[in-house]
């Protein structure tokens, strides 16, 4: 393996993938992004209330660190203002013990989140 083994946190988030899945019901806004070279594909589903994100779900095709990063972000999104899409990706790399090279895949998570927030903002504006 070119990268270091996943941290215990990354391994748990990859295996459990909390908040993963396509949600049912109305009121969800979605956005996605892809990176064709590696095939990484992320889709966010967000619900908002009073200008804040109230719930987040994701679908992801990616390496274990990408799955873990999406799960980590999904747990931290509720309560954030709609439109605040920028993630501290370096901090994610550090917390998950990911190789720096994974940063490129993490940008896909952020790009998809921005798209979903644009959709959500347009819906709640």
């Amino acid at each position, binding site marked *: *393996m*070119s990268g270091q083994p996943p941290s215990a946190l990354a391994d748990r988030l990859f295996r459990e993938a909390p908040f993963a899945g396509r949600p049912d019901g109305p009121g969800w806004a979605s956005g996605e992004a892809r990176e064709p070279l590696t095939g990484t594909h992320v889709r966010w589903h967000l619900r908002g209330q009073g200008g804040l994100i109230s719930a987040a779900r994701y679908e992801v095709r990616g390496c*274990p660190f990408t799955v873990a990063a999406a799960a980590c972000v999904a747990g931290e999104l509720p309560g954030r203002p709609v439109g605040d899409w920028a993630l501290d990706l370096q901090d994610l790399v550090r917390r998950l013990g990911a190789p720096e090279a994974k940063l490129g895949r993490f940008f896909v998570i952020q790009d998809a989140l921005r798209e979903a927030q644009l959709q959500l903002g347009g819906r709640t504006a």
Partner: protein
Amino acid sequence: MAPAVYLDHAATTPLDPRVRAAMLARLEGPPGNPSATHAAGREAHAAVERARAEVAALINAPPAAIVFTSGATEADNLAIQGAARGAAGRGRHLVSLRTEHRAVLDPLARLQREGFEVTLLAPGRDGLVAPAAFAAALTPATTLASVMLVNNETGVVQDAAAFGAHCRARGVLLHVDAAQAAGRVPIDVEALGADLVSLSAHKIHGPAGVGALYVRRAPRPALVPLQFGGGQEGGLRPGTLPVHQIVGMGAAFRIAAEEGAAESARLAALAARLWAGLEPLGGVHLNGHPHQRAPHIVNVSFEGVDGEALLAELAGLTVASGAACSSESGEPSYVLRALGRPDPLAQASLRFSLGRTSSAADVESAIGQVRAGVARLRRLAPA
């Protein structure tokens, strides 16, 4: 936790207990340098010559045509660099395939830097190079062609005998890398028309650290040695011979000669079962020709999953992956890329390779683990 199911025999195989016994007997016996003329030396020399005959017998060669090396990588290097330099006065054009092992591609790249011209043929999507395309690549300046009989990633079997016929007609030396072929498919150096054949012991339940190069006796290709310092192995591979390693290789090749046909039939049945168990997943692709292949390798790409994630799902299975994280280069498999697989499919590939210790239960376990892992990852992925 149960030990992981080992399906990576194309990488290396467990030592056969009979080989181990032969090696131990040698190691625990009195020492003797086979180059020495005293009794212990003569006994060691006889053990080496017995092993030489056992290795030669598997490929229908005379024992004197076998040169022991440290493995197939050294054999490839000696064959390619040695033959190219030995024939440099006649021409400096070399032909091979893009899907060769790095033990062939890297020496060719080295020769290219020295001024040799190298043509690397692209295979079709099935991994095969048509003999006509091979023949068309030969020029009056071509002195050496090199082809892997059984591809180490896909298991595809090239029509090396047809290449050999073209080489003979054009006066070109043919080197065949048979590291994955020995003991899995029949090898007859005469039928292949091969001048040089690389062999490995640890791919067929022998020890690592020993291999051999077949060098045709007549006409004998001129080889420039890579090492100097003694007259062993006809001056082509100087250095004190590792007798216990060589005895182990001989035992492994003898067992392969005795049991290879039946074992290959058994492995082919297991491989067919493996593919039949994976195919219903849908979105799976068998890499390489569906029929012109060795019995022990099944290489499969899976749509809709990430290769690294798939490997992480298979904690109870030891297999090789085409994912970039599995390669030293950090790139997806260049062999699958050469077959036209897009990067995501080249990444999301697994090479299952079976061996003597593989059982039907191993295959069923592998099918179950892969199906569960692929299904979970596909559920996570956007539709």
